[in-house]
């Protein structure tokens, strides 16, 4: 055991920052650089990198809440995919309602349709999350086996209810008019919607980092991840904090689901279950409960999936599993292990 040295408290730095381990980030950079040499063509490399970043950031948006919830309360929600599905389905309904401005050939009115749709997706996912936390998860705190069972059961029921409300068929989810297609920079083709995904993903990450590092609530959340009892002993109600994080995580999953649905341009009820596999891989790679790990893991998964898909499509399917195995060989607790006291 090595004892971390406490940073000296200064006036401007009253909230201690997160300590960062640079090795996984260097690894990420090395993979991007390596891919450049393996792929050979700059334009392909840029296209793949942006696609990988977009996918990775979307996965991060969906996974971040889940890993924080686990870190805070030791609760693993196997029904997290439900919020993704709800977000995506709400987006289909909202985009249908805004089909006028969404199909107009003006960026402003397109964004005017996209924004409220995403907000609606987040809001509904958050409300469902609030309900889900209260009814399904609260009675089984601290019992892992029951948690897995009950959340899986909740997922089954919820998927069926989605069938009841939206029908069992695939629903198309068109992107807004001006965000379709791609534009050329030199000979590099960049899909517009991927850029939107990257921008939103980075904004979420920036907002989350700010909230976790620069606000009192963020400090409490981080402290709660490391030592729940101590936070409670200080007189903070960690349960309220937890519910807030759970609801925020659900809303983010809804946002991610809506964006992912537009990314694929259609929605089926399996969208949640499909993403769950990717999300679990990301969380395992990053280290259960670690937000930074989740971020680096998402980017790793997104980038490698795109690079490998281009370089050798045959092993593309297994690339994520292979990545998970390799990371676990290297660091059995994930890239950024959370030290529970």
């Amino acid at each position, binding site marked *: 055991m090595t004892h971390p040295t406490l940073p000296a408290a200064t006036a401007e730095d009253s909230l201690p920052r997160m300590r960062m381990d640079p090795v996984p980030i260097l690894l990420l950079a090395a993979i991007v650089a390596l891919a450049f040499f393996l792929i050979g063509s700059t334009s392909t490399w840029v296209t793949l990198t942006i696609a990988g970043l977009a996918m990775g950031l979307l996965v991060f948006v969906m996974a971040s809440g889940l890993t924080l919830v686990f870190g805070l309360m030791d609760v693993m929600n196997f029904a997290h995919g439900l919020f993704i599905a709800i977000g995506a389905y709400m987006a289909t309904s909202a985009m249908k309602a805004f089909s006028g401005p969404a199909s107009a050939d003006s960026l402003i009115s397109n964004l005017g349709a996209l924004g409220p749709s995403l907000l609606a997706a987040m809001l509904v996912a958050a409300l469902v999350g609030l309900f889900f936390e209260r009814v399904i998860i609260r009675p089984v705190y601290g019992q892992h086996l029951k948690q897995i069972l009950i959340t899986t059961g909740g997922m089954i029921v919820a998927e069926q209810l989605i069938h009841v409300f939206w029908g069992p068929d695939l629903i198309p989810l068109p992107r807004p008019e001006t965000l379709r297609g791609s534009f050329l920079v030199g000979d590099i083709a960049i899909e517009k919607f991927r850029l939107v995904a990257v921008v939103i993903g980075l904004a979420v990450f920036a907002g989350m980092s700010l909230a976790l590092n620069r606000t009192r609530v963020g400090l409490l959340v981080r402290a709660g991840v490391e030592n729940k009892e101590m936070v409670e002993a200080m007189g903070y109600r960690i349960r309220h904090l937890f519910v807030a994080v759970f609801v925020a995580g659900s809303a983010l999953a809804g946002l991610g689901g809506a964006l992912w649905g537009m990314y694929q341009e259609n929605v089926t009820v399996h969208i949640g279950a499909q993403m769950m596999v990717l999300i679990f891989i990301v969380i395992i790679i990053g280290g*259960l409960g670690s937000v930074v790990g989740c971020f680096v893991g998402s980017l790793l998964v997104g980038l490698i999936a795109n690079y490998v898909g281009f370089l050798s499509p045959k092993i593309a399917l297994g690339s994520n599993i292979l990545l998970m195995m390799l990371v676990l060989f290297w660091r059995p607790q994930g890239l950024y292990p959370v030290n529970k006291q």
Partner: protein
Amino acid sequence: MTPLRSLLSADFPRSRALAAVLACTFFALAFAPFLFSSTRALDVAAKVCVFIVLVASYDLLLGYTGIVSFAHTMFFGIGGYGVAIAATRLGASWPSVVAGTVGALLVSVALSLLVGLFSLRVKAIFFAMVTLAVASFFAILASQLSNITGGEDGMTFKVPEMLRPAYSLFEDPILGVSISGKVITYYLVFVVALALFLALLRVVNSPFGRVLLAIRENDFRAEALGYRTVVYRTVANCLGAAVATLSGVLYALWLRYTGPNTTLDFSIMVDILLMVVIGGMGTMYGAAIGATLFIVAQSYLQDLMKLASDAAQGIPLLPNLLHPDRWLLWMGVLFVVCVYYFPLGIVGRLRDMPAVRK
């Protein structure tokens, strides 16, 4: 009663109602070809036999050892694909069936060992997540490697001559039923399933099974008592995988077909979970009752729901809720209620009944 005692490993139903239900199930399954004339009923009976074993082997993990695996269908599928691939490549003979079974068993045990060693050391949640990822990867793999597995279409294969429907063992029908290859296959499935079920009953009532229970109740204490919990968990995991593989072989032989939809689909994993929990975790009889009830309901409840749905026409939303395809909704609700209020499922309720009356 002594032979019965040793056959059941001294693990009796301990409830009259439960014993009656089990006996009815047993006799219905044992004489299914003579009792039910329709092909559909025999299909249901064979599926019940296979799923009793599959669910019982899952109960060994979930109910007895307290680990949640989402990769059980993967092993079920390995069994099915093993025998299908062997029968296609090596010809429809008994040796190729045996070769396929042995090959599938080896693959399953090796894979479960690998996954177990990777992830059973840490928390239950970790194992559940890793198995979910591995199983979904395997399902994609099976549907993509179409030159080996037949892809999404799966593979239809020839079974040994004796098991084909055209074959008949005797010239004259017995009790009005001609003993065709179909009936022989059914009894093959039934006998092997029964043997596997009794073997599992033996395992859970052995000293080994007691250690598994101890691990489920308190793994820290079991470790402190000197049992190497990782080893026990891994062995239980491999054992469950092996039995699941065998049930996959049986199912493939019965259907003469293996494909992603009959073996690897995640919905089958969900079905298994529902069967274990509704029947009763931690009792082998719960697995038997859960599987029987679920599959009979799956096959016949939907007809009932169609009637109800048609009757509810005109009322908003209700016809949708009662639509035959929504039957999983009600099973899911039952599942959630079971986890909360009846953790021992139907078997637990039946065993508690006399106590409630007193």
